């Protein structure tokens, strides 16, 4: 093997040799087993460099994915948020003595809760108002969230915004308005919001005292979705 063979191998592998140089190199390869082996070794080494590079990119993407997942699609956080909210709501009702009078109202109060909805990306210029709406929503300040969500929905019929608006309207007892949004999401069969819409529509029907309709909605919630367990619990509590 010659001293500059590594550089030659590089040039050969990256197509940087002239046709004559390439032919000469290939003739050498056919007769020089050390050179042929060195070429194979360099190819193997380059393959490892490629794998290392891919892993670097994969690690960066994975990091962002985990961060975004925790932020915007946290089924685990939904449950944690739900538990916290349940505790909070239970405490508020007891402290202020706002005891719901009917069984439906009791069940509604027990089961109605919001969960973190990532409505807008903080790093973009878009939707400062939408971020405000998200904050109001998180704090259950539905009265403040509603006008902002309505404006946003008028500009961009985003299903996530529609869901948040429906939940907010339900939160202030504007049941029929809330249901019109849930129905749109149910009819669109948007796979990401279908079961959420079914769940909240069931709560709306519960609040109206329409137990049969509520049960009907709850039974449509599929077993492999986050609201299934809640639906089963509520069904067990219904007369």
């Amino acid at each position: 093997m010659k001293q500059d063979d590594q550089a030659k191998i590089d040039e050969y592998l990256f197509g940087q040799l002239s046709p004559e140089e390439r032919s000469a190199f290939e003739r050498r390869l056919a007769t020089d087993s050390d050179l042929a082996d060195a070429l194979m070794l360099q190819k193997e080494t380059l393959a490892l460099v490629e794998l290392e590079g891919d892993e670097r990119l994969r690690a960066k993407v994975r990091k962002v994915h985990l961060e975004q997942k925790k932020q915007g699609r946290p089924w685990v956080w939904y449950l944690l948020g739900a538990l916290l909210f349940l505790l909070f709501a239970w405490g508020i009702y007891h402290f202020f003595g706002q005891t719901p009078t009917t069984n439906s109202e009791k069940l509604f109060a027990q089961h109605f809760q919001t969960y973190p909805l990532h409505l807008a990306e903080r790093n973009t210029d878009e939707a400062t108002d939408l971020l405000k709406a998200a904050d109001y929503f998180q704090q259950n300040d539905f009265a403040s969230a509603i006008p902002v969500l309505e404006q946003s929905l008028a500009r961009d019929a985003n299903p996530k915004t529609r869901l948040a608006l429906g939940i907010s309207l339900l939160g202030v007892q504007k049941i029929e308005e809330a249901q019109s949004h849930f129905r749109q999401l149910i009819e669109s069969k948007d796979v990401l919001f279908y079961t959420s819409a079914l769940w909240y529509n069931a709560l709306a029907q519960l609040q109206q005292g329409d137990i049969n309709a509520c049960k009907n909605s709850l039974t449509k919630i599929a077993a492999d979705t986050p609201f299934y367990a809640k639906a089963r619990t509520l069904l067990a509590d219904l007369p």
Partner: protein
Amino acid sequence: MKNRKPDEWIVERLKSTDDQANTVALRYLYTRMYDQINRFVLQNKGNREDGEDIFQEGLVVLFKLIKQNKFPEGYNVEAYLHSICRNLWLKRLHKYRREVELKAERTEIPMEDPGILHFLNADQRQAIDALFQQLGPDCRQVLHFFYYEKRSMKEIRELMGYGSDQVAKNKKSNCMKRLIALVNQSREDYKKLFTNEG
């Protein structure tokens, strides 16, 4: 949707050597495209986990194309990412022998195979990491810039702070010699580890 970033904005940030710039662009693409890709996979016999996998892998493929200056000119980045993910999902469906007529949400961009990015298992990742740790951070970075990102000697000189292009070239050659020697020491082990992947 408002405030859509131009393709140049995305490409510039993904091509950058600055991690923060890469992250901003990846976050942007995540916000813009994740729901759409997830919905596509769910509507085509996939589940949520499939959607997550396909989207992440699609992003890696796109990221690599841009890093290596192979992203075709004139194409919209988001549309291209969608097509990459679609093709990745199609490959996975064929692999699992799940036949389906894909429901398309948008016009597909015809493209060649999005490329096989080999999924490494934990042992393989560890082996790669251990190998390149032995090389040292400077050599690792120079080889990555030259062979993976296809950067010129001038760019490498500027990025690494070398005195001249020739210094950068010499560094690259020496680093490659070192890496080859390291690989050669455990050549059979690497062959066994990387050709028996599941």
